[in-house]
C-alpha cells in the first residue's frame, strides 16, 4: 500500500471542566491512505467527532488538543501557524457535518456559501467559482442546479442541504473529506442516496474519506477499513470485512450483535449492551470496557490493554479477545450478556 496521506499519532484532546480535565480523545493513532474510505464508529461521547475536529484544530472551547501529532504532507497540523491551518482547511482537508439544517448559514444564499469555499483560497474568480458551483451541484445530483444556487438554505430539503454541504466540501477537490455523521439527521432513503453519492465520489475523484458514524450499517456500505472507538480510545481497527466477520474486541462484538435483524425470530428482544458509557472524568481502571464486558477477567480490572495485531491488519485492545471468548466461553451461543456473565466474574465479586 502507498504511504499514508495522514498520520495521526498519540492524539490527546482534553476539555477542562470545573471538576477537572476530561480526556475526550486519549492516545489515538491511525493512518489514512490516499483514496481510501475509513470509518470511525462509536457511541455518543466515544470521542469520534472530537478526533475529527482535532485534526483540523476546530475543537470548540474549552477543548484543547494537548498532545500528539497529525502529519499531513510532512507537516504537523497541530504545530503550523493559524494562517497555515486556515489554508489547509477546506482546500486540502474538507469537513462536512451532521445537521445540514444548522450547518448552512440561514442568511446567505446556498450557492454563495459554496463559492466562498473556493474564493477563500483564491482558487477561482467569482465568475469561475459560480460556474464550478453549478457543476458541483449537478455532480451531487441537485436538480435544476442553475436556479437552486440562488436559493437560501431554508428553501432546500434536508437531503438537498446535505448534498450542498458535500458540494461545498468538494469545491477545492480536497485530498481528504471528513464526514461527521453526515446522514444522521436524514431519513433512511435519503441516507442511502447520500452514502451512495459519497461512495461514487470516493471512487471517481479519489478523495480519501473519513466517515464518522455510530451506524455499523453505514460503515459496511461505504468503508474499506474501520476504527472502533470506546471512551476516547481506539479498541479495535482493521478491514471492514474481517471485523464484521470476526470481531476481536467484546465491544465491537456487542455492537454488531445489537444491530436489529430483519431475519431474526419474531418477538425476539432487541439486544443492547448493558450499562452506560463511562464517565470520562473518572474513567474505570484497567480496560475501560470492563464494567460492561461479559468476558472480563481479573486482569481487565487493573491492567490497561494495548492495541495488538490479532489477525493480519486487524488490531484489538483486549486481554481476552473474541477468539478466546468463542473457544473458551461459548460466546457464539451466549444469551446472557450482562457484565461478567460469560467469564463468571459477576458485579458483586468486584472489589473496586
Amino acid at each position, binding site marked *: 500500500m502507498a504511504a499514508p496521506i495522514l498520520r495521526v499519532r498519540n492524539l490527546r484532546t482534553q476539555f477542562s471542566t470545573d471538576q477537572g480535565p476530561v480526556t475526550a480523545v486519549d492516545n489515538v493513532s491511525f493512518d489514512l491512505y490516499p483514496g481510501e474510505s475509513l470509518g470511525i464508529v462509536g457511541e455518543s461521547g466515544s470521542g469520534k467527532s472530537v478526533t475529527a475536529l482535532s485534526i483540523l484544530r*476546530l475543537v470548540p472551547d474549552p477543548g484543547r488538543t494537548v498532545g500528539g501529532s497529525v502529519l499531513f504532507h510532512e507537516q504537523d497540523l497541530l504545530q503550523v501557524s493559524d494562517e497555515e491551518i*486556515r489554508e489547509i482547511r477546506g482546500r486540502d482537508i474538507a469537513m462536512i*457535518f451532521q*445537521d445540514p439544517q444548522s450547518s448552512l448559514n440561514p*442568511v446567505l444564499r446556498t450557492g454563495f456559501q459554496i463559492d466562498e*469555499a473556493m474564493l477563500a483560497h483564491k482558487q477561482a474568480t467569482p465568475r469561475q467559482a459560480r460556474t464550478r458551483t453549478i457543476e458541483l451541484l449537478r455532480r451531487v445530483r441537485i436538480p435544476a442546479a442553475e436556479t437552486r444556487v440562488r436559493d437560501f438554505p431554508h428553501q432546500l430539503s434536508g437531503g438537498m442541504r446535505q448534498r450542498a454541504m458535500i458540494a461545498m466540501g468538494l469545491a477545492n477537490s480536497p485530498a481528504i473529506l471528513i464526514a461527521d455523521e453526515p446522514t444522521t439527521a436524514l431519513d433512511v432513503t435519503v441516507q442511502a442516496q447520500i452514502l451512495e453519492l459519497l461512495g461514487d465520489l470516493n471512487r471517481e475523484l479519489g478523495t480519501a474519506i473519513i466517515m464518522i458514524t455510530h451506524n455499523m450499517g453505514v460503515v459496511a456500505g461505504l468503508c474499506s477499513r474501520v476504527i472502533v472507538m470506546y471512551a476516547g480510545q481506539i479498541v479495535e481497527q482493521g478491514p471492514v470485512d474481517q471485523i464484521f466477520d470476526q470481531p476481536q474486541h467484546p465491544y465491537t462484538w456487542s455492537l454488531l450483535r445489537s444491530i436489529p435483524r430483519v431475519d431474526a425470530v419474531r418477538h425476539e428482544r432487541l439486544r443492547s449492551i448493558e450499562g452506560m458509557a463511562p464517565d470520562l472524568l473518572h474513567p474505570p481502571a484497567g480496560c475501560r470496557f470492563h464494567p460492561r464486558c461479559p468476558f472480563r477477567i481479573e486482569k481487565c480490572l487493573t491492567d490497561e490493554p494495548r492495541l495488538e495485531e490479532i489477525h493480519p491488519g486487524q488490531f484489538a485492545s483486549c486481554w481476552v479477545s473474541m477468539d478466546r471468548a468463542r473457544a473458551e466461553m461459548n460466546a457464539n451461543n451466549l444469551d446472557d450478556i450482562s457484565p461478567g456473565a460469560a467469564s463468571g466474574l459477576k458485579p458483586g465479586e468486584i472489589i473496586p
Partner: protein
Amino acid sequence: MFTRGTLIYIAQRIVLIAFTVVAVSSIVFLGIHRLPGDALLSERLRGSAYQILLHHYGLDQPLYTQYWNFVVGVVTRGDLGESLVNRGLQITPLVLRELGVSAEVGGLALLFTIGLGMVLGVFAAMRQNTWLDYLLTTTSVVGYSMPNFVIAAFLILVFGIWLDNLTGGTFYYQLGGWRGDIGQLWLPAFALGFPYASIVARLTRASMLEVIRQDYIRTARAKGLRESTIIIRHALRNALIPVITILGPLVIGIITGSVVIENFFGIPGLGKEFAQSILNRDYAIVIGVFTMYAAMVGLANLLVDLAYVVIDPRIRY
C-alpha cells in the same frame, strides 16, 4: 429581496399610517380645545379686539365647524393653519423646516445608536471575559442607566466649561451652519443616542456570543475562511436579527427624547417647538407638531419591519 407581496404590504401599511395620523390629530384637536382658556387670553385683550381676533382664527365658530375646516385644510392643501402667537406665521412650512433639523440630529443619534452599539457589542463579544469586555459592559450599564438629559448636562459641563475652546462655550444650532462644529450637532446627537447605543451594544454582545457557537460558524471555519470574514459576513448578520426587534422602540425613544435634548442644546427643531407651543397654547402648532410625530413614529416602525426583510431572507411579507 422586495417581492410584489412586499410592495403591497408597504402600501397597506402607508394607508394605515395615514389613518393613524388623522386619528391622532383629531384627538389632539378635540383635546386641546377642551382645555380651559385659549392662546388669546394671555394677551389680556378686552372687548372688540378680542372678538376680532377670535373671528380671524375662526375660534368663534362651533367646534365641529372648526374641526371640519381643519380636516379639509389638512387633507386638501396640507395646510395646518396659522400660528395664534406669531400672527401670519404659516404652520406647515415651519413644522417641515423644524422636521428637517430634528431629522438631522435624530439621524445622527440613530447612527450612534446602531453604529457605536454594534461595534462595541462585537468587540465585547470577541474579547469575552477580558478587561476590554468588562470595560465595554460597564460603560454600557452606565450608558443606559443615565437618562439622556443627565448625559446632556454632563456634556455641556465638559465641553461648554472645561473644554470651552472646542465649542466656544456655545451650543447654538445654526441653520446651514458648519456640521463639524461638535457643539451644534455631534454632542446633542451623542447625548440622544448613547443610552440606546448601550442597549444595542449589550444585545449585540449577547447575540454574537450565541451566534458564534452555531454550527454554521464551524462550517465557515472548516471552509478555511478568515476570522474577519467569519465575524462580519457570517456571524454579524445573524446576530443583528434580535437587534432589529428592539430597534422599533429605540427609534421612537430617539424621537421622543429629542424633545428634551433639543431644549437642552437650543436646537430649533420639532422637539423644541413641541414644548414651546404647548406653553404658548398655540393650538395650530401643537396639532401640527403632534401630527408630524405621529407620522414619524408610524414610518419608523415601517422601516424597522422592512429592515427584517433585508437582513433575514426567511422573513417575507
